[in-house]
């Protein structure tokens, strides 16, 4: 239970600070400072936002399908948070005599479960869109769910390549498979181990899954006001916001686990240090991935909806299948 | 250790609910969903028997059922959309002319 509490706490703070990070980075990209007022370098800004969200008036518009309207944000948040539980942060450590792997649950089909949960996430978005009974939100909801469903496939397929390399669904095995190095200095991470294309596909699909910038259509301000969460105020909006960022983090974790070799990294220093280092490496990689996220958000323009769908089905999917075939071939030949 | 029959009873009940839904419901989509429910009931019994006789093939069948269900849903929903477009209603009773 402690682990769950720790994991949850870490995740929430991480979410908050990703928001902060994002606003700072985007600000710097756009040549402005980002939040600096609250606390040093605006570090307390997320706290301020949180307080704001809590105290804001939580208004529920009329003619709204009440039960679902309230349930939608919860569903989104729940699924976003649960996926974190499966992600192994680090290797075995013994803390206060408890020898536990650094993850909440170890399931030998971990990856699949994560995929399942992300696919369930769609409901939150769809129901939100529908229940708020307004054209914009409905359209936003529809678009979002369509987008997420279609990109989910390419996401899944891109992962299969990694699975073939690793031979098992369990995330831990996948990470272990990435231990060691090529010719001394190149780490055996999947990204280098023949799965670069897969990483690229995964990246694209991940952005689409979390409705981030290039695929930011559902909440595109210009057209659909705030997309599916237009009608939501205060706390419910906060939930959606957090769900979104949680998804981002989950996707980031997955990326590191599958492609960037998880907690593998050069280990040096005293044993205590060595125990902590894998976790450090893991966090560092996630941070890098998130930074990439934000960076992309700051620079790339938004896709038009048909471009988005066309890109998803006509480019990404075939690429994923091709990659899959190639890796299968390679693995079959090498084995 | 749960006796196999409990699973079967559960799948039976699911199947029964599916059938009644199939018969009672007026909205085409709901009828469609009850069919899915029936299929799930069947899946459960598949897996239950597979588990009892330790035969993996039972599971494989579940996959095939799923694939078929997916295909069926796709086509079915397309039809429903077409029906809705021409009939403006989803009520089963009004969709009774052979020419769509």
């Amino acid at each position, binding site marked *: 239970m402690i682990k769950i509490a720790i994991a949850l706490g870490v995740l929430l703070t991480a979410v908050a600070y990703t928001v902060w990070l994002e606003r700072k980075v985007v600000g710097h990209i756009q040549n402005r400072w980002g939040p600096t007022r609250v606390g040093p370098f605006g570090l307390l800004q997320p706290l301020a936002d949180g307080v704001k969200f809590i105290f804001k008036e939580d208004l529920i518009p009329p003619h709204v399908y009440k039960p679902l309207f309230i349930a939608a944000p919860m569903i989104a948040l729940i699924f976003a948070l649960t996926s974190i539980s499966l992600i192994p942060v680090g290797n075995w450590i013994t803390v206060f005599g408890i020898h536990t792997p650094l993850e909440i649950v170890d399931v030998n*089909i971990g990856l699949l479960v994560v995929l399942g949960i992300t696919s369930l996430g769609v409901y939150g978005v769809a129901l939100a869109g529908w229940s708020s009974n307004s054209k914009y939100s409905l359209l936003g909801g529809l678009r979002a769910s369509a987008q997420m469903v279609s990109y989910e496939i390419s996401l899944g397929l891109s992962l299969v390549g990694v699975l073939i390399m690793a031979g098992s669904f369990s995330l831990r095995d996948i990470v272990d498979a990435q231990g060691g190095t090529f010719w001394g200095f190149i780490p055996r991470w999947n990204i280098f181990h023949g799965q670069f294309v897969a990483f690229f596909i995964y990246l694209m699909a991940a952005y689409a899954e979390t409705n981030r910038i290039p695929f930011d259509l559902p909440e595109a301000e210009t057209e659909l006001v705030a997309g599916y969460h237009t009608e939501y105020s205060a706390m419910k909006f906060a939930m959606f916001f957090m769900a979104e960022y949680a998804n981002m983090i989950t996707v980031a974790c997955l990326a590191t686990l599958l492609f960037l070799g998880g907690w593998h990294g050069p280990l040096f220093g005293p044993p205590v240090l060595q125990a902590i280092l894998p976790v450090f490496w893991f966090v560092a990689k996630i941070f890098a991935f998130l930074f990439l996220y934000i960076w992309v958000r700051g620079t790339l323009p938004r896709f038009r909806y048909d471009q988005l769908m066309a890109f998803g089905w006509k480019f990404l999917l075939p690429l994923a299948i091709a990659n899959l075939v190639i890796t299968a071939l390679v693995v079959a030949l090498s084995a | 250790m*749960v006796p196999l029959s409990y699973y079967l009873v559960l799948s039976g009940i699911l199947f029964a609910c599916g059938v009644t839904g199939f018969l009672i419901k007026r909205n085409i989509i709901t009828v469609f969903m009850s069919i899915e429910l029936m299929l799930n009931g069947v899946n459960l019994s598949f897996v239950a028997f597979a588990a009892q006789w330790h035969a993996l093939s039972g599971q494989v069948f579940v996959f*095939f059922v799923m694939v078929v269900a997916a295909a069926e849903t796709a086509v079915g929903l397309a039809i429903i959309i077409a029906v809705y477009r021409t009939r403006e209603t989803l009520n089963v009773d009004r969709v009774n002319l052979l020419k769509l």
Partner: protein
Amino acid sequence: MLHLLVFSVFGLVCVAGAVNLLVQRHPINSALSLVVVMGSLAVEYLLLGAEFVAAVQVIVYAGAIMVLFVFVIMLLNAGVEDRSKGSRVAMLFGVPGVLIGSVLVAWVLVARSGTGNVAVGALPGPPKVIGWLLFHDFLLPFEVTSVLVLIAIMGAVVLANHPGSAQQRSTQPDKREG
């Protein structure tokens, strides 16, 4: 004991979901109740040891098919199902009939197949074995189903293509032929 407890809990959830599907008047509610049923079924599969199936169930059924349903419900936005007066005959015969039927079936199942009971995680083998089975013993069905899916996709596309063209064809048939 835990196994039985979990089974009965999720069994009840399943049944509740199924009944809810019947009782609910708005399709969206019944759709969600169906998702609940599928989720609980996934858990049942886990109890039976078929993780891969459970996962696939969640992904495929709950994740994809039900999304389609919700999608269509949202798209069509059909109103609440009007409750028919429910002919007395149906009530008179239907309900008791179903009850008796289910009791009968249940009795038959319970009495007859008291043979084996199922242990947790009884199903051997990681997904690898299933994969192997899928592509060796059941290759032909696999290929056939793939073709089936292809046809389904095409069908769906054709049926649901741009309403405009369908509309024109049906509304002014004579002009075109004339």
